[in-house]
């Protein structure tokens, strides 16, 4: 608790009930699904550049996976609205200082492009046109995966969410889950390609873990609200156990498993790392989403 409380012994004795968690598991689903939907696009681009022949068969299935997860993300975005049947107001009355509105527009363009890519490769069998469109899909996937970080940055009330950090975490979440998903999908890929995906997975996990630990240690040195917020994941905090389960599942165990799989050339360990990373990211995202909302603002 804040040091001033001990000095003043100030206690709230009469007030109203305050709103509890505003953005809960539905928004966690939103961020998690979006990471997969955009991450597979990033990693498909990498694979097609480095292993154009061996990874060619992944064009259509990866686009389908991306479409599915982007739609899961959109579904959970819409159902979280308290007036979900008014979601079209974003298109008829857009407010362009809002990351929510800008993101919705960009993701709409991305979805249209993804469907066009699926049509091009599956119906037209035109891989050359597909690869050109893939470049634009990568370009659009960057703001799509980042715009939740922009929303968090616009949430002035929540000091834990800082834009540079959250932007990095969103990109790492995309590369983590994108590489993990392609490890699970890429059974026919050569070992070298799977090893590359494993290295990307391991590095994404390592950097994301470092960023979280840096925030844990150094964040409280800069902001009073960050001190109070992070108490929820320290000591006997309400989310301490969940936080560490998430960190272990999403980052620590996948890092170790990737190292072991590379040293032993074990694809099973790599797949286990991939599954843990995908599942663990949901927990990590959920904890980081919820804990700033526990802060009393007034």
């Amino acid at each position, binding site marked *: 608790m804040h040091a001033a409380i001990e000095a003043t012994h*100030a*206690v*709230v004795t009469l007030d109203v009930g305050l709103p509890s968690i505003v953005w809960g598991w539905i928004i966690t689903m939103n961020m998690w699904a979006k990471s997969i939907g955009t991450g597979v696009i990033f990693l498909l681009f990498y694979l097609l550049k480095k292993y154009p022949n061996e990874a060619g068969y992944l064009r259509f299935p990866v686009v389908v996976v991306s479409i599915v997860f982007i739609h899961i993300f959109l579904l959970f975005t819409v159902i979280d609205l308290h007036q979900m049947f008014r979601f079209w107001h*974003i298109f008829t009355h857009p407010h362009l200082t809002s990351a929510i*509105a800008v993101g*919705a527009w960009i993701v709409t363009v991305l979805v249209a492009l993804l469907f066009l890519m699926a049509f091009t490769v599956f119906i037209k069998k035109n891989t050359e046109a597909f690869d050109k469109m893939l470049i634009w899909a990568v370009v659009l996937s960057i703001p799509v995966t980042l715009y939740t970080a922009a929303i968090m940055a*616009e949430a*002035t*009330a929540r000091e834990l969410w800082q834009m540079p950090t959250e932007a990095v975490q969103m990109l790492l979440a995309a590369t983590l889950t994108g590489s993990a998903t392609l490890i699970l999908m890429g059974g026919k890929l050569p070992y070298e390609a799977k090893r590359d995906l494993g290295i990307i997975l391991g590095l994404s996990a390592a950097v994301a873990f470092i960023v979280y630990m840096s925030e844990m240690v150094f964040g409280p040195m800069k902001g009073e609200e960050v001190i109070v917020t992070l108490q929820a994941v320290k000591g006997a905090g309400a989310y301490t156990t969940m936080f560490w389960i998430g960190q272990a599942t999403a980052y620590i165990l996948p890092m170790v498993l990737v190292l072991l799989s590379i040293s032993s050339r074990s694809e099973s360990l790599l797949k286990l790392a991939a599954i843990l990373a995908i599942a663990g990211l949901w927990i990590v995202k959920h904890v980081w989403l919820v804990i700033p909302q526990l802060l009393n603002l007034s």
Partner: protein
Amino acid sequence: MQLGFLVDLHLCMGCKGCEIACKVENEVPLSTWRLRVKYVDVGMYPETKRTFTPLRCNHCANAPCERICPVSALHYIENGIVNIDKERCIGCAGCIMACPYGAIYIDPETQTADKCTYCAHRIASSMMPACVVACPVEANIFGDLDDPTSNISKYIQDHRDTRVRKPEKGTDPHHYYVGGGDVNLNPLVSERVEGFSLFNELKHLPVGGHH
């Protein structure tokens, strides 16, 4: 014109008349509040003091809620009030996440965001906000901050201990307090324990009134 509010905390006696007047005037549903008066007890018996702090929307010049609203449901009107168009609101709750003062809630009846509007509908009819009228000690002072002869401008000029909540957020609030300290204005310096306290049960409520 830039309308603003000032509360003289030396005068406020925590009667909650403003809270009730606001509820009645704006038909604020159960379990939600546009304006509330928070009691904080300070010190150890017998050296104790009770503070009363009316809390409402600050109508910031740089309002995070207005910036994050994807459909401009939250918008400025010409007198500086941050108003809300409930017909346009999609209920994304971005404004609730953005407001550093916890001043916005989801109306459980309309399932849209809502907050204090400084009684914009009364001001449009040249009336004072309901809370100002109800205050028995004239602790609520309302007026045009751009007019140096207005009561609120004179009050600010005459009182050196005028403060706003969370100035570090850069929101430039148009809501001032005279006689307030950290205990009144910074929620982090008081302990808030869930459960029965003085007269009521302090707790967190489901958002949007789903209970």
